[in-house]
């Protein structure tokens, strides 16, 4: 098992630069998730680590060895593909055994290793079947089995759950987390799904337009998003970003005017923000409470049972979303008051950088 360090990785396709100076230090046995919208470069970065793409510049170090120019098989990695990339003409056994056959491993040894992988993944009774006879989740497990038998230093996963239905995806998330614990391996996992990132990662890399926006634990990202992008990307439903004008900057923080002339004083470090500047105030839907503050006209209610996701508009047309208690007696068309809990609110300057919060909660986990 090993650490994985990326130093100044850049990648261009023709004149298009898709990765800009990526620096990343992944610890031994860590489960790191690369997350970001499509086209952010997360899959390219993974393929560069795997050796399927060549970096235009930079260094890849796995377990202290520079593998930047090494063949994939010599890097000590193994990869699980989005499509699973199972060989349809081979049995489950032969699919899992494939890397070992390439290595020309002795038959007895090969059988033990495939058997052990099959046991871990509960595939023992499926070994004689062809991939076509398996369910999506089982195919996924075969693909993982194929990477386990190689005993890699680092496991790479490229959106492995995106071909599964929602229910199965939930199950597989749990299975993958358990697998990570039982294998005690370094894992790098690419997804566009922030729920997968939040639930499985030890630490998350948020990528946007080929740059790292933030690298931190799920709760760090949730409570201390470094940028507006991270704030909007992490958390479900998405954080509300409300335009606001700075009324005054005092020792207790920034006093800002929100849509509908609601005035709040946010306990944040003002940084370079001055009176009269435009900022954005970020409030998570689950932090909004029924209290005096913002007045919103409700447009759509999504009653999920425990919570009611309430979508409305503020005066001036800004949309807002609040996660209210399940039985909130509100209907579409009603006007409601939403209180802004100032300690939970975030403020972003015009560049999108966060203003540090003074009363942020302790981070769990």
């Amino acid at each position, binding site marked *: 098992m090993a650490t994985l360090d990326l130093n100044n990785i850049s990648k261009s396709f023709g004149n298009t630069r898709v990765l800009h100076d990526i620096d990343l230090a992944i610890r031994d046995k860590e489960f790191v998730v690369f997350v970001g919208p499509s086209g952010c470069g997360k899959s390219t970065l993974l393929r560069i680590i795997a050796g399927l793409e060549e970096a235009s510049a930079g260094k890849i170090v796995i377990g202290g060895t520079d593998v930047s120019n090494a063949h994939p098989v010599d890097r000590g990695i193994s990869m699980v*593909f989005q499509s699973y990339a199972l060989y349809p003409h081979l049995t489950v056994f032969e699919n899992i055994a*494939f890397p070992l056959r*390439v290595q020309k491993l002795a038959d007895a040894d090969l059988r033990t290793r495939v058997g052990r992988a099959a046991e871990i993944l509960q595939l023992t009774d499926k070994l004689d079947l*062809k*991939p*076509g006879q398996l369910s999506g989740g089982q195919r996924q497990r075969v693909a993982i089995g194929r990477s386990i038998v*190689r005993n890699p230093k680092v496991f790479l996963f490229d959106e492995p759950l995106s071909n599964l239905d929602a229910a199965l995806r939930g199950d597989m998330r749990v299975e993958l987390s358990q697998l990570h614990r039982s294998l005690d391996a370094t894992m790098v996992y690419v997804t566009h799904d922030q729920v997968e990132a939040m639930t499985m990662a030890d630490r998350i890399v948020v990528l946007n337009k080929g740059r790292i926006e933030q690298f931190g634990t799920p709760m760090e990202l949730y409570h201390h998003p470094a940028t507006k992008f991270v704030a909007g990307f992490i958390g479900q439903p998405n954080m509300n970003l409300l335009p606001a004008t700075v009324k005054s900057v005092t020792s207790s923080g920034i006093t800002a005017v929100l849509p509908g002339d609601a005035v709040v004083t946010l306990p944040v470090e003002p940084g370079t923000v001055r009176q009269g500047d435009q900022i954005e105030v970020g409030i998570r839907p689950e932090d909004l409470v029924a209290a005096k503050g913002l007045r919103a006209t409700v447009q759509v209610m999504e009653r999920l049972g425990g919570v009611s996701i309430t979508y409305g508009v503020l005066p001036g047309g800004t949309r807002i979303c609040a996660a209210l208690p399940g039985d909130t007696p509100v209907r579409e068309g009603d006007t409601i008051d939403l209180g802004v809990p100032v300690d939970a609110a975030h403020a972003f300057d015009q560049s999108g950088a966060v203003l540090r919060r003074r009363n942020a909660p302790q981070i769990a986990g």
Partner: protein
Amino acid sequence: MADTVAVPPRQARRKVLPEGVFAWSLVAPAMLFIGIIVAWPLVETFRLSFTDAGLGGETYVGWSNYAELFHSGKFYDIVYRTFYWMFLSVSLKLVMGLIGASLLNAAVPGKALFRVLVMPPWVIPIDFGVIGWKWLYNGYFGFLSGILQRLGIIADPIALLAQKTSAFYAAIVTDVWVGTPMVTLFLLAAMQGVSRDLYEAAWVDGAGRWYRFRRITIPQIMPVIVSMALLSAIWTFNSFEIIWILTEGGPRGATTTLIIDTYKVAISSQRFGEGAARAVVIVGLLTAFSLLYLYFLNKVNKHYGAK
């Protein structure tokens, strides 16, 4: 529950043709068409094979055409030669096609141009191409003979089509030349249908080029290889114009396959009855061959996991 549901009254009231009549009237045009252009000639051939039909009319002769055929040693030579011709030519087409498709599938600059360049043998009218080969093989002004002489391999001009063995293999070469491009393109299409992920996965696992070809490409395109082999076999078995233009089945029958023999008897000698008997034998042989083949294809598809 389901059997208590009545037919909706609206549908029952509507006046329609009886279902059977309607169905048959839909199928009728196609059946008529097939009947005229396929079934009738086939039946007629079968009927003729029991007559001594020629230019002077016909009388029923029973099995005598067949008896004559099966008692002549020459006929067995021809059947043997036809299968030998077929297996050799089809094998070469498949091997060359596989090599060609692999080369065209490789990521090299200008591969689109090469893909176009393999097509002429298939695209130009077959007679032009074969006449070209006839010139190459010619003993007086032939290019091949000239080259061999220049290189000092032979002293005197050689007419490749004038000797039994060389004529047969020269015809094979030309047949392979005509038949390879199609095999190549079909195999290329099959290769391009193989998911890139499979190769990448194998590459990450350390599989080399040859290993990937052997354990991924070949199994993945096996159903297409097998189908192409069948089609190519039938076409090669019945390949007429290439041999006819080059040698007319000669010299001394060295390139006479079943189809050439049938043509010579039925058309050149105008012994329609005897020719028809040969045609029926061809149908029988090819049917048996195809059935065997489809059985094999089915097994291959099952083995290689095609749905």
